[in-house]
């Protein structure tokens, strides 16, 4: 697998436990291409590097050992911050998932770490007994357990690879800022394309269903009505997605309220208002407009609520609680939308 991705390999370092691959600390164009693809949510599952030991620079038996996951984006984020350093990189098998999510699912784990230390013969390669792990690996790795089972002491490094150099220079001391997760505009922005990609497949079903329901009328079914009303309804769906999966992530801290389903409703109302101002009129009858507005709001509320899975501050207990309130509202809005939409051709 390494051979396939040979472009980031710079050479090899001979150790008493065999050859270790030395990787580049500058990213090349395939890395950027891969990053772009992964950020779009395409073939993210198979974007990985082989687990095992790598290095940057010319490390020796005293060099630090940095532990990471085998998601290629994570690996790249780490090595691109290590220019000018001599260090070992121990890549755990997390099935191509980033450190935090893998730690949550217990793949970035005490067991995998202890096993990987042995498989790589790490204790023959370094004379010290210290590992630097990203702090976000802590849900899966119990430092005291690792010490007991492998003899290696776990040092919790900073959350972001960008802080690693300073952390190393300061004698493995992290500032409080390095230890706290952030969720800046740019961090939220990169998540939007993935949110949209996830919705691609369900959207085809929605489209099919919407066309079917839109064609029903007094004369049973009409293709031209399916087409005309169907595109209006699918447009409403698009507005809902725009509000819930686009505006909510981007404007998150500024939207009033704490619950995501409410934020979704708010943004749904905003895009509906915007659409009316833009077109300056209702679409079809009052009943049809009511149905479309309900549809926008059901979709924006649900897609916003689903975004909780991508944020670094929502607790599972909190999400379950908000869903018990949000889902009934969304279902009610959807029922109003469907009933109104089906009924309107008969009036």
């Amino acid at each position, binding site marked *: 697998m390494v051979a396939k991705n040979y472009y980031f390999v710079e050479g090899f370092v001979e150790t008493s436990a065999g050859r270790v691959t030395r990787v580049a600390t500058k990213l090349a164009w395939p890395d950027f291409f891969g990053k772009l693809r992964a950020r779009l949510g395409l073939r*993210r599952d198979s974007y990985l590097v082989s687990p095992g030991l790598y290095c940057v620079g010319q490390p020796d038996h005293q060099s630090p050992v940095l532990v990471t996951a085998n998601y290629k984006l994570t690996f790249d984020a780490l090595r691109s911050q290590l220019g000018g350093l001599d260090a070992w990189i121990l890549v755990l098998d997390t099935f191509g998932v980033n450190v*935090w999510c893998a730690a949550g699912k217990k793949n970035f784990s005490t067991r995998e770490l202890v096993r990987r230390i042995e498989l790589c013969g790490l204790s023959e390669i370094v004379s010290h007994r210290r590992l630097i792990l990203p702090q*976000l690996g802590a849900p899966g790795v119990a430092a005291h357990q690792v010490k007991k089972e492998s003899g290696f002491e776990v040092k919790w490094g900073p959350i972001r690879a960008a802080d690693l150099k300073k952390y190393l220079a300061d004698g493995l001391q992290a500032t409080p800022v390095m230890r*706290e997760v952030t969720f800046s505009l740019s961090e939220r922005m990169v998540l939007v394309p993935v949110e949209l990609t996830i919705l691609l497949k369900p959207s085809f079903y929605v489209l099919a269903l919407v066309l079917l329901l839109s064609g029903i009328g007094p004369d049973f079914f009409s293709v031209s009505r399916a087409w005309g009303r169907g595109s209006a309804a699918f447009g409403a769906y698009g507005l809902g997605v725009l509000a819930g999966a686009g505006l909510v992530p981007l404007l998150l801290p500024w939207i009033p309220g*704490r619950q995501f389903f409410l934020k979704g409703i708010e943004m749904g109302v905003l895009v509906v208002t915007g659409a009316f101002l833009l077109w300056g009129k209702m679409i079809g009858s009052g009943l049809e407009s009511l149905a479309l507005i309900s549809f926008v709001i059901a979709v924006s509320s649900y897609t916003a609520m689903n975004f909780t899975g991508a944020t670094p501050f929502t607790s599972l207990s*909190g999400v379950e609680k908000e869903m018990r309130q949000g889902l009934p509202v969304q279902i009610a809005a959807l029922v109003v939308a469907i009933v109104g939409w089906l009924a309107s051709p008969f009036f």
Partner: protein
Amino acid sequence: MKNFRYMAGVAILKLEADKCIGCGACETVCPHRVWKVEGRQAVIVDYDGCMECGACATNCPVAAITVNPDDGCGCAAYIIQKWLKGEGSEACCGSNCC
């Protein structure tokens, strides 16, 4: 993260204070700065900041901390599957969560 607050009073996070040996692991690993160790004793200083990631509980050497043990990701699609099919049977939405 003080500019991002989720719902108050919902997190399942408990400390058995008499077990604590004040090692400081919880304060180090928490990504939301929920803990503070003062005079060999951990205290929860920002309960509502907790996102139930489990880092503190995993790393407490004396198992003094309890966090919601469900390690699923917090997206709606996952929770609906869990509700419909029961605990343990849910598949997450791939690596797309988080």
